[in-house]
């Protein structure tokens, strides 16, 4: 009896740090955000918090800026699936191949992941500067002046510039996910396929891609949820501007709270994002599970 009690104490003590951290940094903020989303608060410690019911949600859903920011998040997803996924998979194929210098390539491709987001953002802000940026200079040198644009200030173009920088930055990270899948494919299968005449592109189509299904699943879930909460790169590159054109839900949430001091409304955006993120994750999971069955 005594032993069982002491084992219970041990379990509690082992669990306590994780539970305390989870409650402090995840559960409490989530509950507090849900509470604030039904209230109006000016964001000043001790100032009154007034219950407003569903008003914040109504205003957020009627706000064009919110839908525009969601559209920008959708662009992140499109970029994720159309650019990042093939790019990362391609890089994974290179580093798992028998080519020379794969060790160097591994480091080189992974380098952007090791840099801080702010450093990457600043570097690209300079590269994309319309007056003296390297990209426009290069285009001008190639006599392609017409293609030299104001990459971060032109509405429509600025969000895609950030999306592509995002893909450049995370290609190395996702490359590792795909590489892990590729190296786990048994060599016998490739050998058997080779005997049957399945080489080159066929080998990729009928062996590598189908057997990397798990990696594609992981990528899909990470991509969908990651795109919804994109913030740091957007903030460091454009701050959601000019005039909110590159706003994503997380930067909108930040601006509503810290620029306009509408913490209730900002919390409502947070809750909507949470619901959307969970729903999309479940949907993607189900979709992939159904395919499996």
């Amino acid at each position: 009896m005594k032993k069982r009690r002491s084992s219970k104490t041990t379990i509690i003590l082992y669990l306590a740090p994780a539970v305390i951290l989870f409650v402090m940094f995840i559960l409490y903020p989530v509950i507090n955000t849900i509470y604030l989303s039904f209230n109006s608060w000016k964001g000043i410690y001790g100032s009154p918090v007034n219950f407003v019911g569903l008003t914040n949600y109504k205003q957020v859903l009627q706000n064009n800026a919110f839908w525009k920011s969601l559209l920008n998040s959708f662009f992140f997803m499109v970029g994720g699936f159309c650019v990042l996924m093939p790019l990362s998979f391609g890089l994974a194929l290179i580093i798992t191949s028998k080519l020379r210098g794969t060790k160097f390539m591994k480091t080189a491709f992974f380098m952007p992941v090791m840099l801080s987001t702010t450093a990457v953002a600043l570097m690209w802000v300079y590269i994309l500067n319309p007056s003296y940026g390297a990209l426009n200079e290069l285009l001008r040198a190639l006599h392609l002046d017409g293609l030299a644009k104001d990459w971060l200030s032109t509405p429509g173009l600025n969000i895609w510039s950030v999306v592509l920088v995002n893909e450049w930055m995370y290609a190395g990270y996702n490359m590792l996910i795909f590489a892990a899948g590729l190296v786990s494919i048994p060599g016998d299968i490739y050998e058997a396929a080779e005997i049957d005449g399945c080489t080159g592109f066929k080998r990729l189509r009928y062996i590598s891609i189908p057997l990397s299904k798990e990696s594609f699943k992981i990528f899909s879930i990470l991509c969908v949820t990651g795109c919804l909460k994109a913030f740091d790169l957007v903030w460091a590159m454009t701050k959601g501007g000019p005039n909110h054109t590159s706003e994503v839900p997380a930067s909108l949430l930040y601006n509503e709270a810290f620029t306009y001091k509408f913490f209730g409304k900002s919390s409502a955006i947070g809750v909507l994002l949470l619901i959307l993120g969970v729903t999309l994750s479940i949907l993607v999971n189900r979709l992939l599970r159904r395919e499996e069955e």
Partner: protein
Amino acid sequence: MKRKVLAVVMAMSMAVGVWPAAAMQTEASGGDDITITVSSRYSNDNPDENYFRQKVEEFNAMDNGITVVMDNISTESDYLDKLRTSFANGDTPDVFQEYGGSRCLDYLEADALVDLKPYLDENDGEWYNTFYDSLWNQTIYEGYEGIYAVPFKTYMVVMYYNKDLFEKAGIEVPKTVDEMLAACETFKSMDILPFQVGEKDNYRFGHFNNNLVIKTLGVDAVDKLASRELAYDSDEMISTYKTMAEMVEKGYFGDNILDTDSTTENTIFKEGNVAMHYDGTWFIANELFGTDFYDHVGVAAFPYGDESCKNYAQGGSSDMFFVSKLNKSQEQIDASIEFLKFITSPEYYQGLDEVAQTIVPVKFEKTDKSPVNPLLDEVNKIQSEVVDMRTDIQNYDPESHMLDTVRSALQGLAMGNSPEQCAEEIMQRIQEYGGQ
């Protein structure tokens, strides 16, 4: 047994992690010295801001039982974000720099600011009387008794111009908006940039619009906008956006204005490639004085759109210091006042005048060390003709989001939005945020 020991060690390590924070708290509140935090944007390497930091160090060296810890962040948006966050979590600086107006109204409504009037009135208003009377109107709020800030800097927006380029073009410095547009056209035809605006910092268009409104529609328009008697989508206001939209379209504001920040804007003007540059009077001390370019610059009043408004200007107290009482002890508040008295003393401004001359909010006597500064003399001459001033128009608005709302909408003009779109965006935001 081993497991049990490990569990206890882990639990203890959690507790130990919290210990230093608790210990620091005790030390801060238990010692004899009072430590106060002062937040400002004065982290740049220019004579004015270097002087501020030097004086704070001098204050700390006085051994008066008060230690000032500076928290200086230069970029306006970053500074304001940090300040707002500190108000949300209750860990505010003791003294902070802000620009007054409606943006600080929320702090006042939440009873987070110290009423400075009792301190200013001490000894027959000794401290109060060191300031120019006209500046107090920006530190008081309708419906609230008291004074909630002390002016630290004053300014007026004027038009700086490159004398060489005007001579080359053979034209007069514009006095009216129409003359300014004509001058822009002349410079454009000569392949010279009329302006190079750094609208990446969206206060630049904000200031331009302030001047168009104040010097075309008059100072009354500012009050009418605040009371909504004059709408932001009225024909009068749309005409001001229209002027700006046309200037964007014709390239008068320069190239890549959304990718240019105000620092780059200053640099380009100082390189001598731009004909005109509108800015606050701080520009002389921070950017021109002591440079080779100083003699190539002239200064004039910002052009007026209507003759009846030619003696109005955008100006007044720019930077002000507020004292927070959120979670502060009386000792901390008293220490904050002591510090404020030090940095707003005539001696402070006397010393400042020797290193960075500008127009200031406090009366003081110049010393022999004050350098000759013809540009500042010219500014003083322009100011002597001004009969009324207003700072940023939205500072007088009852809704605290308006300054950011209008600046953001004006930034849309730089992207090619129409004047009507700009007006619509402001009105939509007013409607959206109304009653919050």
